[in-house]
């Protein structure tokens, strides 16, 4: 520092700070230096300036591409809910579903993987058909869901991926079979997952190609049994 013409104590401190920044000291002395610097604002400023000075040598570290395994290990360490995790963890992972919602095909492919990961062995009789639908934003609403239906249980599992609803409105889910009118599956919550048990009638109609649609309705859902609000998201069930 240009104003720092004093010799002795000031220089001694500066040299210690530089040694700390370089990291040349043995562990115990390094730790002692850290304590001294942490207690002295002047030395802290000096440290920042030394770090900045030395950082100009950073250019001399030569770039070398690491092997791809490093990134996989970083991901496995930080995001254990990603590939390889248990069923519940995956289902609960919003981030997992968000990455899938890019397209129906991606969802279907990943859902197959998801099912393969289930630890339970199912006999062919038990193994009902699975349908998945990416219910994607319509007209820029931002509302997106993923639905997974298992014919063996008759239950639709629904996960909200994105979208917000005004406090005085609700989202309502419908299924549409061919040219038939939409049938309500009830009001669904945003920002959480839901399970809906289909009634016998719905079970018989729910199949590949069934369209799932979400409309924006008054609080509590459409009072008439027919959709009244705009369709905010729509998607088709695909067998997996």
């Amino acid at each position: 520092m240009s104003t720092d013409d004093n010799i002795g104590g000031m220089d001694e401190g500066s040299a210690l700070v530089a040694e700390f920044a370089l990291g040349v000291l043995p562990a115990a002395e390094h730790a002692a230096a850290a304590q001294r610097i942490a207690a002295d604002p002047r030395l802290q400023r000096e440290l920042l300036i030394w770090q900045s000075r030395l950082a100009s040598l950073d250019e001399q570290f030569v770039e070398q591409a690491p092997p791809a395994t490093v990134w996989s290990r970083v991901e496995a360490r930080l995001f254990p809910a990603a590939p390889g995790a248990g069923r519940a963890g995956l289902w609960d992972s919003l981030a997992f579903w968000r990455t899938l919602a890019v397209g129906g095909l991606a969802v279907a492919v990943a859902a197959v993987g998801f099912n393969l990961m289930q630890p339970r062995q199912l006999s062919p009789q038990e193994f009902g058909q699975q349908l998945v639908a990416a219910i994607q934003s319509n007209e820029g609403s931002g509302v997106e869901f993923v639905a997974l239906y298992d014919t063996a249980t008759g239950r639709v599992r629904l996960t909200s991926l994105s979208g917000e609803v005004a406090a005085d409105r609700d989202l309502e889910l419908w299924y549409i079979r061919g040219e038939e009118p939409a049938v309500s599956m009830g009001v669904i919550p945003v920002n959480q997952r839901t399970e809906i048990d289909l009634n016998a009638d719905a079970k018989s109609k729910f199949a590949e190609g069934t369209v799932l649609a979400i409309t924006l309705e008054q609080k509590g859902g459409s009072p008439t049994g027919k959709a009244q609000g705009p369709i905010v998201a729509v998607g088709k069930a695909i067998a997996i």
Partner: protein
Amino acid sequence: MAGTASEVTDLLSRVALRDRAAFRELYARTSAKLFGVCLRILNDRAEAEEALQEIFVKIWQRADRYVASTYSPISWLVAVARNHCLDLLRGRKPTTEDIDLAEGIADGAPDPEQAAMATGERARIDGCLDALEAGRADAVRGAYLEGLSYEQLAERHNVPLNTMRTWLRRSLLKLRNCLSA
């Protein structure tokens, strides 16, 4: 190369908000540089790979701390990598406070004038290193770029440990005076 500093700063701030896509992008842009740091300092490929993994875990966990730093984003990342490698080599067990100091996020940030001065100094460091007596500049570079300790430097330059320490401290003060002249 790693892209512009502002792009990397932007990625870091998104990583601080737990944006995984930004983290992946940050890794894509900066892992080669940081792997270069690990290889140079640890001088062992398997250890460098292991260290790089740990370093990116730290970056994910500590990205929010960068904001307060006066470092350039790349320098901050290099500092995280370099300090991690030195902790390994020296068997250091740093406290959070040590880490904050080492990564340039101490409380006493330089005022704008000091920061500008430090920036101006960067361009001259090589010139000032060259102005040092023969061998002394090598010791500074060896300490910074290879992570050599006083002991290793003394061995390399074939002088007693205390002599090495006196040399390096004098060299550092000369360097400081040259840079701020």
